[in-house]
């Protein structure tokens, strides 16, 4: 059992449960607004075809929503079980958006989802539409707060270290919620959810249109999904670009890694389309580059330089030196809380305390670190370039494909062409792609942040609980088995209920 590292196991558990949870969330985000659009049309036209349409998609929404709610609890509790030091160290800031999410959004969506399913015969049409609208609003407000929390992990604004409590504490709530990184991430993530919901609806309605079944319902669904999806897919790419711009300001290492940029290039830097990055040799094989493009996207200028990985590593040596001073001052203050000299050293170097912790996380006592130790710690800042480089490229390719797909679908539906055609076939085969793109997007965002749990503040390794490998392994295996069984059941039901099609003329 000593071969297992509890921190690696805890990371695997977090990655597995987060990626799993996010199979359900984006569909909830997108499908909820699509339900609102369909139901609003029903309320306005009083044509019961629209009601049958809402009910059909609603049933699929329900199976998915239950899974999303169920697996979300794991995400929250896991911070406490596997990441106790993280919880202690940043709970003062990170906990607040989670709690507010519950109060503002999650209660709303979860109460309204009950009315959506069980309230058809008990409410007026407008009341029911209101419940559906509040459901969609709630799901999206949830995403706001979760992404404020996640945005803070990428760019920890509005917080400072307090040596008397040994943790980060909030200094500005305003900075926390109006963090530009969080704002861009929110719009990018919910737009991706809208794309996911639209592809889902487009693909399943294509399935029926190709078979000539339920045509009245499916051609309406197809048209709504095409127009909503077109707007959403454009928004995803634009806001993804905004995230890239923010990343260049706040997370230069992640930016350099996803671009496979080992060396700083003269501005404007070239964009690498294809490469086989080699982390040990710190170089790319088989590169294909487009001149100047990266510099334009990343800095929106011709003359701002984007630093490469090697330069970023060199810069962090200095920050680790500052971090050692801050760490030593912190230890001195722990011994004598009235040591004012140490307090002023900490005040001067506190912003780099995280780099002292990074050194500690490599197993070196910051008080005894040699230059070689410091440089070795700097090198741990280099992320795993290969998976980031390729995850990012596949995600972007999917994004552009969605724009094309929705444009084609929009063109077909605006001309009233719903007879079996090749766009429907393309839509059907595209069904898994939004999930692929979204999961890869999270891998870029979170794996690309390593070795930090909180960028520049808390290394992931130090955030873990003092639990043993067998404990984490037990729960990891437990979750994998349990979640796999659930996924099989969920997909079986989804496919069965999707294939069964709508129940027309329901009461």
């Amino acid at each position: 059992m000593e071969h297992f590292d509890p921190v690696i196991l805890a990371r695997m558990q977090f990655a597995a449960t987060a990626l799993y949870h996010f199979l359900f969330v984006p569909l909830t985000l997108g499908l909820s607004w699509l339900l609102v659009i369909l139901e609003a049309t029903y309320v306005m036209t009083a044509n019961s075809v629209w009601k049958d349409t809402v009910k059909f998609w609603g049933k699929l929404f329900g199976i998915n929503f239950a899974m999303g709610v169920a697996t979300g609890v794991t995400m929250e509790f896991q911070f406490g079980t596997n990441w106790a030091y993280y919880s202690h160290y940043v709970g003062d800031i990170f906990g607040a958006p989670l709690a507010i999410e519950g109060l503002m959004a999650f209660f709303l969506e979860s109460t309204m989802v009950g009315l959506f399913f069980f309230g058809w015969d008990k409410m007026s049409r407008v009341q029911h539409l209101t419940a559906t609208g509040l459901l969609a609003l709630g799901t999206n407000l949830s995403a706001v707060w979760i992404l404020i929390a996640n945005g803070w992990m990428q760019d920890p604004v509005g917080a400072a270290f307090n040596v008397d409590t040994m943790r980060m504490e909030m200094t500005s709530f305003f900075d926390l919620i109006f963090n530009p990184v969080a704002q861009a991430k929110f719009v990018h993530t919910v737009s991706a959810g809208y794309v996911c919901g639209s592809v889902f609806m487009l693909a399943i309605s294509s399935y029926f249109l190709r078979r000539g079944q339920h045509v009245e319902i499916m051609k309406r669904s197809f048209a709504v999904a095409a127009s909503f999806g077109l707007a959403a897919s454009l928004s995803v790419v634009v806001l993804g670009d905004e995230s890239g711009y923010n990343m260049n300001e706040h997370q230069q290492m992640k930016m350099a890694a996803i671009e496979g940029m080992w060396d700083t290039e003269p501005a404007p830097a070239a964009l690498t389309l294809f490469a086989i990055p080699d982390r040990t040799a710190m170089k790319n094989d088989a590169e294909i580059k487009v001149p100047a493009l990266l510099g334009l996207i990343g800095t929106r200028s011709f003359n701002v330089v984007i630093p490469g990985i090697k330069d970023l590593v060199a810069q962090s040596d200095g920050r680790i030196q500052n971090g050692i001073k801050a760490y030593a001052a912190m230890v001195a203050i722990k011994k004598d809380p009235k040591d004012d000299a140490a307090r002023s050293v900490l005040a001067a170097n506190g912003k780099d305390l995280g780099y002292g912790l990074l050194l500690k996380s490599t197993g070196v006592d910051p008080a005894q670190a040699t230059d070689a130790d410091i440089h070795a710690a700097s090198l741990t800042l280099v992320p795993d370039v290969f998976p980031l480089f390729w995850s990012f490229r596949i995600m972007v390719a999917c994004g552009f494909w969605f724009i094309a797909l929705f444009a084609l679908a929009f063109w077909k539906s605006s001309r009233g062409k719903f007879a079996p055609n090749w766009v429907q076939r393309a839509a059907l085969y595209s069904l898994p792609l939004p999930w692929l793109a979204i999961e890869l997007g999270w891998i870029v965002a979170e794996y690309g942040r390593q070795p930090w749990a909180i960028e520049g503040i808390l290394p992931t390794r130090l955030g873990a609980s003092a639990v043993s490998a067998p404990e984490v392994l037990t729960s990891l295996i437990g979750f994998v088995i349990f979640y796999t069984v659930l996924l099989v059941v969920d997909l079986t039901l989804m496919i069965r209920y999707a294939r069964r099609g709508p129940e027309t003329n329901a009461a």
Partner: protein
Amino acid sequence: MIPIPFDYGTLRLIWWGLLGVLLIGLAVMDGFDMGVAFLNPILGRTDTERRIMINTVGPVWEGNQVWLITGGGAIFAAWPALYATSFSGFYLAMFLVLVSLILRPVSFEFRNKFSGNKRVAWDYTLFMSGLIPPLVFGVAFGNLFLGVPYTIDTLGLPTYHDGLVMGFLHLLKPFALLTGLTSVAMLATHGAVYLAAKTDGTMRSRAATTATIGMLVWLVLFVVGGFWVAHLDGFTTTSAIDINGASNPLLKTVAVEHGVWLRNYQAYPLLYAVPGLAILGAIVAVLLIRAGRFATAFIGSGLMVACTIATAGIALFPYLMTSSLEPSQSLTVWDASSSPLTLWLMTIAAVIFVPLILIYTSWAYYILRKPITEAQVNTPNSNLY
């Protein structure tokens, strides 16, 4: 920045109260659907009866479960040290709770999409999901009185000094088992009262009988627990307390003394009204059930649930979690909170949103107020589970 109108100690006290509100909200609201899940294969003799039971909570369980999620988020934000220490300490127990919390919605959603033995299997996952969380939460609460084997280092990292399986089995001490059973009895009873209010015919009379028996079981366990706790070794702070001090749980000294858990009741005898109200709530609920006033009886059982939790919380105050290895490292209201700014912002959020939540939740319950009948669940193409 607008100055915070309360001092740190007051904010901490407010958040101790709000923690109580959230735990009570969880037990009263999510508790009844756990009770219904637990009773499902016991009281429902046919598939139709079980579907009736499930559909009484079908439209509301999702909203109810949010009390748990918000409660977790609020502990994270307001009591980060408690969040870190308790969740990582009760490791295997939390895993069991998580699995059962996932099983419950999944069972609701999936059960009616299967038939025969597969459907019956979901009835038993539902039963487990109604049994395990109340049991584990009750056992955990009991262990807070007994002390838990953890220490906290100077950097603030909590470590739980017990193995995986033994650490879990050691939680099952006699007193903790009693509090666990009290919790299960309380929520099963509360669920039975809810069922009586939301069903009719034989299902209703069966639920009413179960509720009456459940009240008696709960009463015995609650009273035994009350006498038992008076004879336990309790925790008491022996150094000066600065209620406005920094949140560092390593700066005080705590002694273990026999019988001190009733000190708050002895200091303020008026507080005995809280356990008194729990018993009164149970009695009123039984009388109202016998009078056929089922919906009003639910208020009585809600009072029972709320005051049972308040009774335990008042006894523990100011302790949030106690260490059996290093009693001085126990977490209290005065040294385990988040910063004044975070507590204040969270207070504002709670003051704005809790009333809104109560308003739309009431609206939803009003719309769904009619009992579930056999005719309804047998209607083809219905929206029910």
